[in-house]
């Protein structure tokens, strides 16, 4: 049942520059995780996407980018599914 999702996560995690990927549902439960992302952060990521969507309730869900010195984390929420992609320059 989850094969298409697993395949998709594998594909993303093998892209250049990607060090981890996490997928969470609307309840904040982890649907899949690859690389350095941690399954325990799924709740936070879902909550973050939900909070950010509250910024402009009328508009489409935004893309959230968290930037650190060495890595980035992209979070996007769509159809009750939240996807987070971790990127770090070492792997690119």
């Amino acid at each position, binding site marked *: 049942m989850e094969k298409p999702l697993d395949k998709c996560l594998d594909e993303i995690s093998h892209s250049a520059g990607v060090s981890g990927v996490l997928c*969470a549902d609307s*309840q*904040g*439960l*982890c649907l899949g995780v690859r690389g350095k992302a941690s399954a*325990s*952060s*799924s*709740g*936070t990521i*879902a*909550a973050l996407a*939900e909070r950010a969507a509250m910024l402009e309730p009328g508009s489409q869900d935004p893309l959230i980018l968290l930037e650190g010195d060495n890595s980035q984390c992209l979070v996007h929420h769509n159809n009750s599914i939240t996807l987070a992609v971790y990127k770090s320059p070492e792997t690119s």
Partner: protein
Amino acid sequence: MADEMKKHLTDLMNSTDDVLGIVITDRDGVPIMKVASEETPDLALRPTFISTFSMATDQAGKLGMGKNKKMICMYGNYQVVHFNLLPLVVTVIASSHANTGLVMSLDKDIAPVVSQLAQVVDIASMS
């Protein structure tokens, strides 16, 4: 110290959406520390309800998959997440549409409080 702990728990409760209450009890369900908002169902705070968990977690530990750490109970309007941090048990009561993943990750914020409390409880039970 107790006031600080209580404040910490209240902050945790308020900073997580839809969390209605956090109760730290011993394994028999005797409340040690409790923070709850007004919407919390009284039944969920009663020792009879919470002590059921310690029985269930004991049984779940016998399934051969190691010690049971967390238990999530979903109800029509509420969800209850129990953390097994023996000798103490932490019960988090939230509304059913709360972010379960976020509630489950509360354990690492509560654990420091619990370990401090556990020391106190240990000393008390020894004397």
